[in-house]
């Protein structure tokens, strides 16, 4: 489902646009009439227009989760433990339920709790909430500056690959066309594509989006795969939906040219004629900064490959590569079957490299310094550096670049200074809402793909949310499974129904305790989700639950 609708759209709608694009251009909420009008004017099946609209929170004509409310309180884990739920309740009390919605997540986890007002982000404590109330009631504009995540320069002598330009800039933002130009791209273009790929292979770079697939091998596969019409694509996945992660956001906002240069290097390496950046809806600043940066590149004639921005419309699943491709193709972004992998048959059926933003931002450094130099950083199998984002349960939250292999304890207690006043470390969830939740005993493990897997964890995308003795981990588990249920695309049965049943069961357990019977059902559900689901969303959804069962037996006994 459905190559036919893609082909039909191509025949009926000019300019390669899709129902997803057309709906995105609608100003204001998508009403039934909008769907009927769009269907009539384009000839597209009304069913198709409606299913696309209903799939995305921002396009949905009826959904109550995220769209249509001007005020949206972030319900990512960092914000929830920092008081986001109470903030939402108080705003509902002051403004009424209609005006206040929730969103996951705004990517300001170091300033939690935060809320959005239209496209602005506001720190929710004290004055922020008051200003938002006033803005809604009287239309008075916000006077508070937008909150920002802190970006920490690595200590002298520690590798600084990705943050280099932003920490060097007085504003912390390396905006404007870089003085050094696209030197790495120039070097890449002076080399045959195979040599560029070889350099990347030598670097040992693995994808930073979570799966850890070797980047060089992916680009080589795209270059080698036959294309039905000769086209190949590079897609930068800036659908950073993991609550607790603001890595790609900061990269895109603070050094957009590193990303674009990375895309162009990848495009040269694999023979792609178009690079697409898929930006999640919750990152409006990243979108406009990238748009401006692309204009700069095009103006300088550096592009050499078409560059396009696509705005997401609010669906976590779009971070999954097959879903992301279906979204760009204008379909409801349900997970697709693999194989074929996007590298063989991706966007429009053509070989496509879908890469994480951080991965692409790494390519310029590798091209400048050589793959071997990169491979010397970090550990075998997990080379280079990794960006990690930390929430404000820690004293010095924000974005860090750390060498692979650095023990977690050093990251959390060394770099970030440990827990804030009055809080004791309880757990850390690494890699987003589907990542494992690890206890203090696991903190001596070094950052890396295999090392974290060995303790039942995942590096994931590198977002870390730390919880303290004030935080209710069982409630947290309920919220995480509810999130998975809400964001399930609904294609495969285990995830579509299983996440809901698991969520219901967890609520019941939180209320009435974990009986042996409930535990058996919970474990069956977790197993079925893990082994039965079509994609990573359902497959990973039980990970936090299973890790809590393993590492935190006490939380389950509490009310039994």
């Amino acid at each position, binding site marked *: *489902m*459905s*190559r*036919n*609708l893609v*082909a*039909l759209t191509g*025949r*009926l709608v000019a300019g390669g646009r899709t129902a997803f694009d057309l709906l995105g251009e609608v100003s204001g909420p998508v009403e*039934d009439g909008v*769907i*009927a009008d769009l*269907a009539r004017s384009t*000839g597209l*099946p*009304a*069913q*198709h*227009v*409606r*299913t696309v609209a*209903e*799939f995305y929170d921002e396009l949905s004509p009826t959904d109550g989760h995220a769209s249509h409310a001007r005020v949206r309180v972030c319900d990512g884990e960092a914000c929830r433990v920092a008081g986001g739920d109470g903030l939402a309740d108080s705003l509902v009390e002051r403004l009424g339920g209609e005006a206040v919605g929730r969103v996951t997540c705004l990517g300001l986890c170091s300033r939690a709790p935060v809320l959005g007002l239209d496209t602005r982000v506001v720190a929710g404590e004290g004055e922020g909430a008051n200003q938002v109330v006033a803005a809604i009631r009287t239309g008075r504009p916000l006077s508070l500056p937008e909150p920002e995540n802190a970006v920490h320069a690595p200590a002298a002598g520690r590798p600084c690959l990705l943050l280099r330009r932003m920490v060097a800039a007085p504003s912390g933002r390396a905006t404007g066309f870089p003085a050094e130009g696209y030197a790495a791209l120039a070097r890449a273009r002076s080399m045959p594509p195979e040599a560029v790929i070889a350099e990347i292979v030598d670097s040992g770079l693995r994808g930073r989006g979570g799966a850890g697939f070797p980047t060089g091998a992916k680009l080589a596969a795209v270059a080698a795969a036959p294309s039905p019409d000769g086209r190949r694509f590079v897609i930068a996945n800036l659908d950073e939906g993991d609550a607790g992660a603001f890595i790609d956001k900061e990269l895109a906002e603070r050094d957009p040219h590193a990303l674009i240069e990375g895309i162009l290097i990848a495009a040269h390496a694999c023979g792609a004629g178009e690079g697409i950046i898929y930006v999640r809806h919750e990152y409006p600043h990243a979108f406009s900064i990238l748009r401006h940066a692309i204009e700069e590149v095009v103006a300088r004639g550096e592009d050499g490959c078409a560059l396009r921005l696509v705005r997401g419309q609010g*669906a976590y699943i779009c971070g999954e590569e097959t879903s992301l491709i279906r979204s760009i193709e204008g379909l*409801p972004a349900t997970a697709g*079957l693999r*194989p074929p992998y996007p590298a063989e048959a991706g966007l429009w059926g053509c070989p496509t490299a879908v890469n994480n933003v951080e991965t692409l931002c790494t390519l310029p450094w590798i091209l400048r310094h050589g793959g071997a130099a990169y491979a010397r950083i970090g550990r075998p199998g997990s080379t280079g550096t990794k960006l990690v984002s930390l929430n404000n349960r820690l004293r010095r939250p924000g974005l860090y670049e750390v060498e692979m292999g650095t023990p977690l304890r050093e990251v959390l207690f060394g770099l970030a200074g440990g827990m804030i006043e009055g809080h004791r470390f309880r757990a850390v969830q690494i890699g987003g809402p589907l990542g494992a939740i690890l206890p203090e005993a696991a903190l001596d493990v070094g950052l890396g793909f295999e090392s974290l897997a060995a303790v039942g964890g995942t590096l994931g995308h590198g977002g870390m949310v730390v919880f303290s003795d004030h935080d209710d981990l069982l409630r947290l588990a309920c919220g995480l499974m509810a999130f998975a*249920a*809400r*964001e*399930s*695309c*609904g*294609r*495969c*049965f*285990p995830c*579509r*129904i*299983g*996440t*809901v*049943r698991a969520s*219901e*069961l967890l609520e*019941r357990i939180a209320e009435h305790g974990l009986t042996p*019977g409930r535990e058996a*059902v919970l474990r*069956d*559900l977790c*197993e*079925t989700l893990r*082994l*039965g*689901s*079509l994609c990573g969303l359902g497959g990973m959804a039980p990970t936090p639950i299973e890790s809590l069962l393993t590492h935190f037996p006490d939380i389950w006994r509490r009310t039994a």
Partner: protein
Amino acid sequence: MSDQVSVTIDGKQARVAAGSTILEAVRAQGGDLPTLCHSRHLAPHGACRLCLVEVEGGRPVAGCHTTVRDGAIYRTTSERLTRLRRTILELIVSDHPLDCLTCRANGDCALQSAVAAIGLPEVRFAAPRTHHPEPDHSHPLLHLDMAKCIGCGRCVRVCDEVQGSFVLGLAGRGFDVRVIAGNDQTLEEAGCSGCGQCAVECPVGAIREAGRIGYPQREVVTTCAYCAIGCSLVVGVGDGRVVAVRPLEDGPANRGHACVKGRFGYGFVHAEDRLRTPLIRRPDGSFAEASWDEALDLVARRFAEIRDAHGGSSFGMISSSRCTNEENYLAQKFTRVVMGSNSVDNCARVCHSPSAFALGAALGTGANTGNFEDVEAADVLLLVGANPTESHPVLGARIRQAVLKGCRLIVIDPRRTELARLADIHIALRPGSNVAVLNAMQQVLIAEGLVDRAFIAAHAENMEALEASLVGMTPEWAEPLCGVDAGTLRAAARLYASARRGLVLWGLGITESCQGTVAAFALINLAVMTGSVGRPGAGAGPIRGQNNVQGACDMGALPNVFSDYRRLDDPQARADHQRIWGVAPPTQAGFKTPEMYGAARAGALKAMYILAQDVAQSDPDTTGVVTALNSLEFLVVQDLFMSETARLAHVVLPGSSALEKEGTFTNSDRRVQRVRQAVPPLAGLTDGTIILEIARRMGASLGFEPPLDAARVMEEIARLTPNWRGISHERLDREGGLRWPCPTADHPGTAIVHEGGHFIRGRARLTPTPWRSPLETADEDFPFLLTTGRMLFHYNVGTMTRRTAIQRLARAREERVHVHPLDAARLSIAEGDRVSVISRHGRVGVPVTIGEDVGPGILFMTFHFPQTRTNLLIGPGADDHTLCPEYKVTAVRLEREGIPEAHG
């Protein structure tokens, strides 16, 4: 072999095709995996996950979409798999009603079967959230009970991947995903075509055929009696009645698909007003019921008297595509042997006689050069004067799929049909200007050097004459004649010529015109000039309108040929027939149908026998037809119902439907397929038996004693029909359909005629196609051009479909004249207003529907509704070569009929 891999399945080594899925491999080894979302008619979906298999050294994978890996070791059962499958079933059942015993799908439910097979001890979820949408029984043919939906998406996918209507969708996300029609509308509002394939695919009771409950007592495989695609259907019978119809999974023509008519159009068989006894006209004009003996004796006596008094030429027979090949064969044999007349014709006269004539003259045989599979092989399809998504829905769906998979499409049609909207180029020509358009296209091919000179030199003749005849017929010349800009015509010619495998298909929009044969020649010329014929995907042919119109012609129910199109004056054919028939066939050429009417009006034709055709409604110049029939001394009409034609008869004999008899039909790609009796003939005798009875009572023999044994008739057909010599009921029953030519008992049949440019007539003849204006042109008094055609939900004059559940669909209830919005605005006509449509020949009253499927100045009507009788408008114009009537272009005007009817 390199295209095979070695795998181990449940401990047994097997070699299976590389690239096959694990599910396919397991099934190939005789095993199976449980599935709910999988269908072999659809692409793998991987949703239900019941087909998980264990892979040695890895995680379980879904068998339906994971391809086999060489050396892999798979297990289809394990303790873990059972646990996973049970949990998945438990999840499904947790949001599914447990009313199995009163569910319409009881015993026909894949979920029920899976639970029974895998076992489900309990559902352990307390107070789970569930969905309880109300059942929707608004559609007269399909009932929705979405509380039972399991979200597998098979209905949505079949609506997309097979039917291509895109009416159904899966809306929402996650747990609340639900099947919707259109913009969350009812099926009818959403434009559902009613093919019912969603009900076939639905593994549970969420989408079912309305009314169907319980198993049929028995099932009979037969061939559909509507259009000429020749879909294989499984007819369910209970208590002596047809209770359900579904497509045969492996039907060679339909591959498990069917349309609304084939699936739901069977109710007429048991209609209250079916004729159940013969009727004899009393002197006062009323009809008296009669016994079969009375009626048949009377018919036999009168036919004999008239023959003896006036000679054979005083008798005419109109046979029918509704009848089997065997019956058509007997009808022409009766006419020739018993009555001594060659005046036998069939309904092809008013549809594809020009196609058959032109193909026969140009290539050597009057049938499609290729087959329906060509649609999938072609890279450019030129579709002319045909609207297959409504008239031939199964083929239409296949064309739509081919186009969405990349086949380029050129549509030549005055109407903006569904396929025209999808086309790369739509030539929305003025009705009646086919030949102008096609001549311009031919001219472009020649002028721009786009013809295949080598092919022409090797395989064709008369190119010089054709080239000379086309001089000056440029797109610019055609533009004012057809109303389409020259650039579009040129682009269409170039696109067609660019094909590696170009396919030309045409419909009645070509033939039902005074230049029908010329236009067919032009289309054949295009194919021959470009060498696009005689290869898979490359060919030319008509999409036949009726189930067995090909067979009626093949069987010699024509005034000028025997079966196999052997000429009456062919000495060998005459000798063969005399040897087997025992009498010399008459020599005097027979009348074509319109000539029969003329002869009747002139008093030369005294008696007619009309089988299963309502000519007083279907034929043009209705007044003339009625006068002709009223002039006859004796008219016998054999039909299912008291038709307009039957009202004029002296004796009305109750006919039998295709569901009531044995025999064969020949579809549009020459495939001869079995027709089997599902229920006994309502009035006791089948059409074939009636013919044999009349002959017997006339003291003549047709070589067979009643009742009809169709298999024996086929043996005689095979002896007299060289291209059918290898066809027998026994082979058809064993092998399914056979496409003629099939000259020997071990011949597999012929998918593509003229293969490799080896034309049956030797060289293909390129035929000049001079242009002349249509007889009907618009003027001040009659400013519109009316064109007619079919709509999806009805068939011909609606005799059958109007007596089925299909009639209850809102869009199927009444005739409407289609008017372009600009014309409607100019005439101040609103949707639903009643207007008079007035031609130079007649007038009818009809409500208006406004839409852009017709261009300004053009109107469209169907001819399905006896209360409208559209054919009253049609003039006497006809094709020069074949007398096929000019249904497709009539100058008319519109007049408003008083004030609009109140709505509701």
